[in-house]
Each structure stands twice: as C-alpha cells, then as structure tokens.
C-alpha cells in the first residue's frame, strides 16, 4: 500500500530532504539557521539531530561563499543542498550562480559537473519589504546551465526536491513562502518523477491560463470564478521553468485559442514574455485573441497591504483578463 501522508508544503520539503539524506550518498545540507534551529521556516527540522553536524550544518551570513562551496563540493563528490533563506538574498551571491555554477559543465567540456541543489523561497507577503518579496525565476531562466522548478503543492515540492537531488545538473528549487502552510497528500514512496513537464490542473475548453509558483492559487481561483460565469478555463501549472514544457501549453492553446499568463514577478522581462513569445510562434494563426499577461507591477513591491493588493495578480484580475480575451 502506498505510504500517503497529509502534509503541509513545508513538511513535504522536510520529508524530501530527509529522503535525500537517507537515500542519496554524500548529500549534505547547509545554509543559515538550517541545523540546530531547523530552518527559518522549519524545512530542515530535526535533520541536524538525525544526520549529524557533518551532513547538516549552519553557516555564516556569507551566501557567496556558501554557494561557491556548493559548487566546489559538487564538483568533487558531494551532493550539496544549499538553502538561500529568501530568494532576494540570491543577488548577493549572483556571481556564483551566473558565472560559476551555470558554466562549469559547459566550459569544462563536460568533464566537471555541478550536481547541486539550491533551495529558496519567493513571493510577497503582507508587510514584507521590497527586499523580501522578489520572484526571481526570470533571472534564473535567462541563465543557461541551470534547472529551475517552482513547486505549488506539497506533493510537487516533495517530488521536485527528490528529482533535483538525484539530478547531475544544478537545480534551483524555488519554493513559495505563501504556500508553506497549505496541506496536501504526499505519497512518500512514490516513484521519482522525471525532470520537467507542465501539468494541466484544471481541464477546460474555452481559454488557457498558465501560472506557476504562488500565482497558481490565484489562477485556480480564477478558473472557479470563470466556471461560475460559464467560461471553461484550462489551468496549467508550468512547474518547471527549465526545462520548459512549451508543448503542454501550446497543445492547450491549440485547443482553446486563448492564453492568459500570470506571475507575481514584474511583467517587463518576466518569464511570461518568454512563454508568450514561444506560444505566439507555435500557435500562430490559431490564437483567437492576443496573449494576455497578468503580472506583478513594474516596480519594487511595496510593503503596505493596501498597496500590495493591487501590485500582484489576483484571481479577479486573471479572470478579467480571460474574459477580455473571450470578447476579443
């Protein structure tokens, strides 16, 4: 009988890390406050106790050094899983990501590799300042050599981390802080999932909504709203930013003829642009309306909830955009 548990997203992360430490040789887990404290959000709870300080350890506030350490140790036999507490902090260590981790396999002609995982979490929450609310997938997506996944459910998080840990590529697991408390069924002994692949979460015929990360919540809610108004939207969770599964999206759009893309990151230069460009190319002539994007504002995110409310995609705005494509 499959081992199924009802877990919160953050608990699922914890289980996946535990699985990694138990199952994948030479896995180590490090970051800030991940050992004795068990992680600022509890992702690494009890791992230090159960696997010891050699495998699970705390580090100084030195993200550049520890992402570099992740790379160097991955090149030489370990399988590090590093935690960047908020995705915003990645920018202090961006050189190690863009100029080092992403490059080494290619520039060594495949002789070195970087089998490492960087976990982080992103998104805005009420009162969070502009330095704690970035959504960073587009910066990563534009950096060839990286794999990037944005899980949206406990099961997705569990599987994404396991897939990432056994991968020989550097993988960013970009979790969502707002989704951490959400519960769902997790099959702990599930087969590993292959890397990549979008998922049709809500099948529909009239229009396609694609989202990822926190924004999926709003997208699904928009789907419900639309259903109540007689519009049958297909909602797709993009899941993996890299590798990118354009097929699933394009297949959906080929069917519906309409596409709304939603994400929390600013619209300009966001990954929605890439996706729109790709689908625009693939589905040329089959689109019945322009592809619409519903995104975070082109501004640093404000902290006050009164401003945040209009700064990020809501179900209303996504549903509105779909209705607009329907009347186009």
């Amino acid at each position, binding site marked *: 009988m499959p081992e199924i548990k009802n877990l919160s997203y953050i608990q699922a992360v914890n289980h996946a890390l535990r699985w990694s430490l138990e199952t994948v040789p030479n896995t180590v887990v490090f970051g*800030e*406050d991940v050992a*004795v*404290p068990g992680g*600022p959000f509890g992702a690494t709870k009890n791992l230090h106790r159960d696997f010891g300080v050699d495998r699970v350890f*705390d*580090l*100084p*506030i*030195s993200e*550049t*050094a520890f992402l570099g350490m992740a790379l160097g140790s991955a090149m030489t036999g370990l399988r590090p899983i590093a935690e960047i507490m908020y995705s*915003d*902090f990645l*920018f*202090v260590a961006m050189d190690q990501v863009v100029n080092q981790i992403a490059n080494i396999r290619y520039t060594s002609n495949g002789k070195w590799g970087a089998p490492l995982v960087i976990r982080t979490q992103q998104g805005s*929450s*009420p*009162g*969070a*300042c*502009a*330095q*704690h609310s970035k959504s960073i997938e587009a910066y990563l997506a534009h950096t060839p050599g990286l794999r990037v996944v944005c899980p949206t459910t406990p099961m997705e998080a569990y599987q994404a981390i396991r897939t990432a840990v056994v991968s020989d590529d550097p993988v960013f697991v970009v979790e969502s802080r707002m989704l951490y408390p959400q519960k769902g069924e997790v099959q702990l002994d599930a087969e590993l999932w292959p890397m990549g692949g979008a998922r049709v979460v809500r099948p529909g015929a009239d229009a396609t909504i694609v989202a990822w990360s926190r924004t999926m919540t709003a997208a699904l809610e928009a789907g419900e709203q639309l259903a109540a108004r007689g519009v049958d939207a297909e909602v797709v969770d993009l899941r993996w930013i890299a590798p990118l599964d354009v097929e699933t999206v394009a297949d959906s759009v080929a069917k519906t003829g309409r596409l709304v893309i939603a994400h929390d990151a600013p619209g300009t230069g966001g990954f929605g642009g890439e996706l729109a460009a790709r689908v625009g190319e693939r589905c040329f002539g089959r689109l019945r309306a322009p592809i619409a994007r519903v995104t975070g*504002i*082109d*501004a*640093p995110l*404000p*902290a*006050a*909830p*009164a*401003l945040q*409310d*209009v*700064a990020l995609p809501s179900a209303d705005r996504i549903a509105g955009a779909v209705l607009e494509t329907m009347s186009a």
Partner: protein
Amino acid sequence: MSELEELYRRMLVIRRFEEELAEVKKLGEVPGSIHLCIGQEAIPVGVSALLLPDDYVTATYRGHGWAIERGSDLAGLFGEIMGRASSVAGGRAASPYLSDASVGFIGENSIVGAGVPIALGAALSCDRLGGGRVSVVSIGDGAMNQGNVHEALNMAAVLALPLVVVVENNGYSEMVRIEDMVRVTNLAERGAAYGIPAETVDGNDPVVVARAAAVAIERARTGGGPSIIEARTQRLVGHYSGDAQHYRPAGEVAAAREVEPLVRARAALLEAGRDAAELDAIAAGVDREIQDALAAARLLPLPDPTTVMEHVYA
C-alpha cells in the same frame, strides 16, 4: 539635566516605542514581521548624541532606534510600520526597510551588510562636498561575515572617508551564535585587516558608547578616516516578532535583563542622587509622547492604491 539623564530619556523613548509596537503587533495592526532593538538602545542613543543634523545614518532592519534618534516623526514611524500612508516612506518600506530623507536617515536595510557600502557613499559625499559631516552605519555582528562589509571597510580606509561603522554585537545572527561563526574573540580585531582603528566597548552603557563615538566621529570630521566601534550588547527579545528563542540557553535573557541599559542607567541615576519620582516622571512623559504618536498613527489613512506606480522613476 545631566548627560546620563538625557541619554536615559532618549533610551526610554526607543524602549517604549518598541514595546508599544510589540503590543500593536499583537493586536494585528502590524503586517509582516518586526525586529526590535530592545536591550540595544544605548548604542543608537550613545552614538547619535554626537551627531549633527546634516550627518547621515544608515542602519539595519533592527533600526527603529536609529530612526528615532535621527529625529524621525514618531507617528510617521508607527504609521510606516503599520502599513499606513506615513510621512516616513508612505507605507512602501515598513518596519525593516524604512528611511527618512528629511532627517538624513539613509535608511534601514534588510540585506545583511548592504548598508555599509551605501553609507560609504554618503561618506564620500561628506568628504567631497565638505562641511565636516560624517556618515554612521550600524550593522550586526553577523554582518561582519558578509563580503559587502569587507569591501566597504577596506575602501573606506583606502579613501580615508568619514565613515563610522558601529557593530552592534548582540551575540546572535538570528538563531546562531557569533562565536560559532567567526574565529576571533572580538570583532574589533578585524579592524587591523583594514588599517582601521577599532575598539570593543560596553554597548549597554550609553556614556561609554558616546565616549567611543566622540573619538570616532571627531576623527572622521577632521579627515582622519573611518573607525569601527564594536558595542557589546544583548537583545532582550527575539530576533523577530515571532521568534520563540528556543535556541537561547535557559536564564540567558533573565541574566541579560539585570544588566540591560535602562536598568543600569536608572540605577546609576538613583545612585547619583536622582530620586525615583523624578525618573518616573520622565518615564511618564515619554509614555505620553509614545501614546500620542501611536494615536496619531492610527488616524493616518491607508495608502491610496491608485498611487502604487508612483516614484518608481523620478
């Protein structure tokens, strides 16, 4: 009024502001998390006693005390933290990233260490534009391990800029101890690596802090370049509002409460002959000031959502 009495009053303002904020947070009126400086008040107060209105100050997310000492409007600060259309930053910044140009408060910073390079820039302006002004930046002990701080310290020394770096060593970075994260006993030992004069002082005594600050600030004002002041202190509360502090050994906070700046200053004042009623009157005055500010903040409107795109660009 004696020097200490004034320092005491100013520390009380910060303490009461922070305590009140904790209450307001419990009432659900503060979105997001807050990082209180309760226990560390002697540092902003001691240093700021030496600052002039056109000097610059940069702090961290634990920087309410520095903003208050700079002279930011208390109601504006409460309002900012409560997500209102405040006079400070319009509700855009909140507790951990607020700034106030009207009082030369470069601002808090929620990226560990990142304020030091920015404060270095303010020091460059002080130097190049003249007037003997200085730039003060406060960081935590944990920040000393960030590359940005290292770079800025070296550059301040090389350019001999009027920068005073105050390291508020409260022994912890979030939930880990500084002694597990460095291999020096005092962080001031790092000053030598940059050729920067550095000293470790009792950060729970505002007079001691002020004395160290006087030397450093005078050095900066007169072209003598940067200084580092490591001020030893303890936070009496959690790292942030929701911190249960499981990681702190039993009795640590209780012991800290015995030697915290307000307790010590009050004892010293009593010792020096002030009577308790006098001090209670000061406290009552401060309390009124805080209550008035909070009441005023509660009347501030919420930010107008239609302004959300304002001030992205000039």
